[in-house]
C-alpha cells in the first residue's frame, strides 16, 4: 500500500515523464555559451532585490543563481494562522532575479533531504520543457541545474509545477517568484526616452486557502501532506481565505514598510502566479506602467490602478511628489483590508501646497 508521501511523489513522477517527451534542447551552441563571462549572484529576500545594473555593461553573460527549497510552517496573519509553506529560498514570494536580454540564467535548485515533497520550477521567461519544469524535478536530497536564455524582456513569473493536482497546491502554498529581464540599454518611457529608478521593490501577491474547523477557526496541520485533502476542497471554492503581499498580512507595514523620499523614482514589480489582481497606490499613481510586464511594449501612462493577470508579473514606475504614508493595495478593497493585501510606503520630504492643501480644517457647518 502506498503511503501518502509515495502517492504524492508518484503523481509527480508520472507528470515529469510526460514532460520529458515534449522537452526540447535549449542550447544552440554549448561552446559559445561556455566561453561567455559568468557572474554569480546572491539572491536577497523580497521586497528587496539584488544589486544590478539598469543598463548592461559589456556583452551577454551567464548569471548563476542558487535557490534552496524550504518546506516550513509560516505564519500568514496577525491571528497566528499557520500555512504549511513551500518556498523558494525560504521566502514567499521567492526572490526576484534580474538579468539583461541575451544573458543566460543558470539556476541551481536544491531540494534538501529534510523536505518531504518533489519540486521543480517553471520559468515563464524560458522557452521549452514546460518553462524548465520538465528538466528540473528534484526529489528531497537532490539538486539540479538549468540554464535558459533570456530572449524576451520583461517581468515574468516563475513557479513550481510538479504535475497535475500538485501544481496549484504548490503554488498556493507559496512557491512562486519572478524574473526581470531588462533591455540591455535599460528601461524606456512611451516615447523611447530612457528612464531609471532609484529604488526597486518586488511584491509577490499570494492567495491562500486555509481550511477551517467546525468552529470556523483555521486548522493547523503537522505537515504539508496532511493538509492536502482539506486544502484542495477550499481551493475548489475559488475563494481565498487570505490574499497577502509577501507571504503575510502586514508583512510590508510598520517597521517593514517600504521607504522612499520625495523626488525619488521607484519601480514596483508585482507578481501574482495564480489569480488576477489590481494594484493601486493610494495617493499616488503609476507614471509608467508595464501592465503585462513586457518591456518591448511601451508603458501605459498616468494609471490609477493597473491589472496584473493571474500568472504574470507587471511593473510600475513612479516618482514620489508628496511626503506621507502611502498604502499600496490590491484595489479589491475587501481583499486589501479584510484579507490582507495592503503594503505601505513611508515617504519623507517636503510637502507641496500646490499639489494639495487643506484650505480649511473641519469646523461646524456655517449656518
Amino acid at each position, binding site marked *: 500500500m502506498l503511503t501518502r508521501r509515495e502517492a504524492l511523489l508518484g503523481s509527480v513522477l508520472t507528470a515529469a515523464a510526460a514532460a520529458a517527451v515534449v522537452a526540447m534542447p535549449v542550447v544552440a551552441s554549448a561552446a559559445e555559451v561556455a566561453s561567455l563571462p559568468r557572474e554569480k549572484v546572491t539572491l536577497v529576500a523580497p521586497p528587496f532585490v539584488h544589486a544590478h545594473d539598469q543598463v548592461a555593461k559589456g556583452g551577454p553573460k551567464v548569471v548563476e543563481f542558487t535557490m534552496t527549497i524550504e518546506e516550513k510552517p509560516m505564519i500568514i496573519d*496577525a491571528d497566528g494562522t499557520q500555512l504549511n509553506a513551500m518556498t523558494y529560498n525560504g521566502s514567499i514570494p521567492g526572490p526576484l532575479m534580474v538579468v539583461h536580454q541575451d544573458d543566460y540564467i543558470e539556476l541551481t535548485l536544491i531540494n534538501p533531504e529534510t523536505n518531504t515533497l518533489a519540486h521543480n520550477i517553471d520559468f515563464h521567461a524560458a522557452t521549452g520543457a514546460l518553462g524548465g519544469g520538465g528538466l528540473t524535478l528534484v526529489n528531497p536530497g537532490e539538486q539540479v541545474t538549468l540554464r535558459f536564455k533570456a530572449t524576451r524582456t520583461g517581468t515574468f513569473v516563475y513557479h513550481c509545477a510538479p504535475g497535475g493536482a500538485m501544481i496549484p497546491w504548490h503554488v498556493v502554498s507559496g512557491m512562486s517568484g519572478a524574473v526581470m529581464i531588462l533591455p540591455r540599454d535599460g528601461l524606456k518611457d512611451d516615447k523611447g526616452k530612457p528612464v531609471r529608478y532609484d529604488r526597486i521593490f518586488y511584491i509577490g501577491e499570494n492567495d491562500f486557502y486555509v481550511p477551517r474547523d467546525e468552529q470556523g477557526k483555521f486548522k493547523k496541520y503537522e505537515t504539508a501532506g496532511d493538509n492536502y485533502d482539506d486544502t484542495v476542497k477550499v481551493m475548489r471554492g475559488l475563494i481565498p481565505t487570505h490574499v497577502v503581499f509577501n507571504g503575510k498580512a502586514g508583512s510590508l507595514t510598520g517597521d517593514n514598510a517600504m521607504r522612499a523620499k520625495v523626488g525619488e523614482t521607484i519601480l514596483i514589480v508585482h507578481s501574482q502566479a495564480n489569480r488576477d489582481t489590481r494594484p493601486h497606490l493610494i495617493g499616488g499613481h503609476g507614471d509608467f506602467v508595464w501592465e503585462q510586464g513586457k518591456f518591448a511594449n511601451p508603458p501605459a501612462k498616468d494609471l490609477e490602478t493597473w491589472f496584473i493577470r493571474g500568472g504574470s508579473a507587471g511593473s510600475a514606475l513612479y516618482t514620489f511628489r508628496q*511626503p506621507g504614508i502611502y498604502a499600496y493595495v490590491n484595489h479589491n478593497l475587501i481583499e486589501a483590508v479584510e484579507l490582507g493585501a495592503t503594503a505601505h510606503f513611508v515617504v519623507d520630504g517636503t510637502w507641496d*501646497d500646490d499639489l494639495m492643501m487643506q484650505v480649511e480644517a473641519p469646523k*461646524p457647518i456655517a449656518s
Partner: protein
Amino acid sequence: MPFDPVFTFGTTAAAALIGLGITHALDRASLEFPPPVAVSELVVLGPGSFEHPQPGEFLKQNHTVAAPVVQETIDAPLEIMKYQVSVSDYGLCVADGACKPADSRKIGNVPVTGVSHIDAEAYATWLSARTGEAWRLPTDVEWAYAAGERFKGDIDGGESDPNNPARRWLTQYRQEAALGRKPDPEPRAQGAFGTNSKGLSDIAGNVWEWTSTCYSHATIGSDGKRTASSIDNCGVHAVEGFHRTYMSNFIRDGKSGGCAVGTPPDNLGFRLVRDRTGFFQTTIRSLGLTLTAAESRVHE
C-alpha cells in the same frame, strides 16, 4: 399572501420576547424579582484629580495639535468592576434575551470579547434592570483614573507642521511601529494581565474596553488649553487599553474596525461602573429588598 414560515416564526419570536419583557415588569411590580445576578467584584476608588490628555482630535489655528492635557477631577467615590465583564456574566444577559450573543468563542472565566458599544450598553441596561442598580460604561476620564499608571492616550504625532502635514503622519506612523506591539488575539482568563496600583485587573491587556465618551473634533482657544468649539460624533466612542483609539459603535472586532496602522485593538470588551445612588437601587432598597453584596474595597 402565501404562508411564510420563516416570517411567521420571526414575528412570533419577537412577540414572545416582548412578552417576556412585560412579564419581567409585572414580576417586579409584584415583588417577585428574578433571581439576583452575582455582581462581579468591585473596586471603589476615592475621589482625586489627575492630569489627562483629552480624547478626540484637536485643531488650533486651522492645524492639528497634540491633545491638550487637562486637570481632571473625580469628585465622588468611583465604583468600577475589578475585572472586565466575563463570558459567563454576559451569557446570562444573552440567556435572558436582552443581549446578542458575542462573537467570541471562549467560555467561562474569560473576558467577553467580540462585543460592540451597542452590546455593552445593552448589557448595562439589562444588569441595571436585573439588580436594581445603575450600571453604565465608564467615561474616558473615569477609565483613565481607574487605569492609573497603565493609562496610555492616543498614539499622537504631536503638533503638525503647518507647512508639511505629512510630518505628523510620519511621526505617528513611526511611533506606532516603534511600539513594536505584536498582535495578541487570544483572550486569557480573568486576572492574567495582573492588577494595577488601583486594584483593577487586566487593564491594558489584550482586551480594549468601550467607554461612554464620544469621539469629537475640537478647536482649541488661544490659551492653548480651553476648547473653543467642538463637534461630537456619538456614532463613534473612545475605546481604551494599550492605547486609546476610537471605534464605530457597531464594531465588534477591532481589527476590522480601525484604520490604525500597526496596533488595532486585539479584542473589544468592557467593564462597567456602578452609580452609587442609582434610581433602581433606591427603589429596591425602599422596598426592603437586599441584593447580593458585591465585595468592595476602598483604595486610598
